[in-house]
């Protein structure tokens, strides 16, 4: 019975998240459209509301091309690795008090592990396609992941020190219910580093080098088509959501809001996540792209020292207070 309930919960969570993913693409296209003095999708349904569904059907029925020169098992496995890793990290997210599928004590570490695994998918895709552009995309992704995992992990050490836990639910509870006690204020340097590393981790503009369209055609997804392409796409959007959720949990006080919403506790959580997503999209419409070496320099020379400084300051603060 217990197992049945868990399976049901997983199914509901997946359905809800995938629906959100579909409509995040719509959200993104509409917002970017209006920022760029055009309308965005308008044809399918009222104001293009059915566009994500049409896209889904289209990519589902498209021919799935596997290049002859590709390393077939790896080529097939890469998008699955990407998507599964991202979906797995959804399990530990606390959407509201007690609304986490698996409330484990190493939640934060688990998410780091999963997002690193997802980049294996990208690297393998770049390698297995056996094409020049995908290979360069895979290489860039590898370098980017190594450079930005570290500042990202370090930026959250401050949060761990303040809350004394790696459990996501406890991190939220430790921040209290007041808006002034959220970790954004004491951890402002950490948040800054985390936000930039988050953009890089999810391969978004201005760090979208692994799939830089005007340089590498489509980077690691150049050879993919149909549903396999869509799997990478979904993985990217779920990745954005997971990262936005971590930002919400660690810095913005999770599901707590100015007042409680009856019957629907995750309201504030979802609102904050969408706030992050809006920022992602806004940045995409505004900024040009970094160059590969500049990206490395930013990660190693600026973000890592800043994150270390943040840890030092947090430690000093803790010693002085106690």
């Amino acid at each position, binding site marked *: 019975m217990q197992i049945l309930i868990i399976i049901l919960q997983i199914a509901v969570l997946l359905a809800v998240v995938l629906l959100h993913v579909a409509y995040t693409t719509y959200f993104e296209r509409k917002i970017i459209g209006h920022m760029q003095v055009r309308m965005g999708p308008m044809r399918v349904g009222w104001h293009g509301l059915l566009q994500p569904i049409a896209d889904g059907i289209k990519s589902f029925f498209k021919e799935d091309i596997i290049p002859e020169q590709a390393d077939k098992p790896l080529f097939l496995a890469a998008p699955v690795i990407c998507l599964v890793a991202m979906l797995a990290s959804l399990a530990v997210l606390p959407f509201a008090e007690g609304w986490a599928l698996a409330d484990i004590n190493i939640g934060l570490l688990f998410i780091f592990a999963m997002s690193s695994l997802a980049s294996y998918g990208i690297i393998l895709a770049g390698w297995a396609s056996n094409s020049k552009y995908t290979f360069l995309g895979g290489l860039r992704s590898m370098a980017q992941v190594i450079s930005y995992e570290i500042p990202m992990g370090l930026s959250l050490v401050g949060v761990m020190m303040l809350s004394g836990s790696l459990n996501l639910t406890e991190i939220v509870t430790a921040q209290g219910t007041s808006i002034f006690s959220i970790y954004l204020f004491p951890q402002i340097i950490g948040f800054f580093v985390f936000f930039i590393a988050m953009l890089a981790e999810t391969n978004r503009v201005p760090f979208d080098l692994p799939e830089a369209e005007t340089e590498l055609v489509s980077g690691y997804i150049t050879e993919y088509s149909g549903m396999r392409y869509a799997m990478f796409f979904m993985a990217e959007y779920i990745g954005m959501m997971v990262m936005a959720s971590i930002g919400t949990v660690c810095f913005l006080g999770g599901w707590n809001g100015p007042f409680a919403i009856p019957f629907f506790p995750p309201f504030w959580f979802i609102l904050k996540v969408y706030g992050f997503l809006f920022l992602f999209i806004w940045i995409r419409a505004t900024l040009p*792209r970094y160059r590969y070496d500049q990206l490395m320099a930013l990660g190693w020379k600026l973000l890592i020292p800043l994150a270390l400084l943040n840890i030092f300051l947090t430690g000093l603060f803790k010693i002085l207070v106690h």
Partner: protein
Amino acid sequence: MNETTTLDVPVSQGDEDRYRLKLGPQHPATHGVLRVDLELDGETILDCDPQVGYLHRGFEKLAEHRTYAQNLVLTDRLDYIAAMANNVGYCEAVEQLLAIEVPERAKFLRVMVCEMSRLTGHLLWLATHALDIGAMTVFLYCFREREVLLELFAELCGARLTTTYTRLGGVRQDVTHEIMMKLERFVDAFPACIEEYETLIDTNRIWLKRTIGVGQISGEKAVDLCLTGASLRGSGVDYDVRKHMPYAAYDKMDFEIPLGETGDTYARYRCRMEEMGQSNYILRQCIEKMPPGPIVGDDAPDLVMPVKPGRKVEVDTSARNGLIKLIDDRDVYMEGDIYVATEVPKGELGFYFISDGMGRPYRMHIRSPSFIHIGALATMGKGVMVADLIAIIGTLDVVLGESDR
């Protein structure tokens, strides 16, 4: 089977760790069908070899079989982004060869369409250059203004891109009052638009990082590589055909030539942005100073169209802009050769004619700035990263229709 087979074993040359990449011809950032053969070490380019010819249509050979008037339509297809400027360049050259006088109003109209096409060319350059570097929004902002100009072209001559607006000895159609009103509205609004683009990218840290010091080239080197246009002026060399060898009515216009200092991608970007402001200023002068009078000279030759028997052709002779005018073309054309250059958005566009006294050019050569700029890519692309190469292709402002002609 006793067939000789060669084993495909690579011969060791000490460069096995080089990564060979053929960038293009199907690539989103090569502005058409440019192919660049690269040898990479990681992401650094060791060797860069641009290949052209994927859009070759044999215009120079084709021109030898067509009359001077017929060749005009070929020039639309050179730099299809700024067809008007090519039309003017071709007509200026043929008119000097045939000693045809152009009336004052036609000269002003030519300057007007030239500057309009310079704006369309520069707007498209800014749009694609920004898109190459990753700034997507500028692209659509630029197309918004470009659309206004293209609509004006369509109203003026019926076509947005392949205009064929000029004629030997003048222009084809006169401007109406509405067109001038619309143009004036555009001229009034455009400076604010330039500011809008600048707010998006001009002081953006990432944009500065991607452009300053990238593709840097000294003035001397730029002259050696035969760069023209803003690609040359960005290095501080003061050369503009409009100023130094004025054609049409440019000698009556008041404008400045913006110059860069550093010769990098950012300097060229600034140069073109200021050129847009100057073009706008010239357009304003055109509107104010536009003289009255005929738009086609009296001795202008035109298409010789055989009238089919049993078909009545109405020729509006009073307005002097009828398309059909039969002349005995043998007398008009003199022997000799001539090179005439004009300043198109990309740089110096030259037409070189050898005439043997027939109604057709014996040889027509087009000095296309894009072709020469692609030649410079081989030098400028060495030792930079792949992302910089894309920025350099953008900043050299090439269009393959003109390069491959």
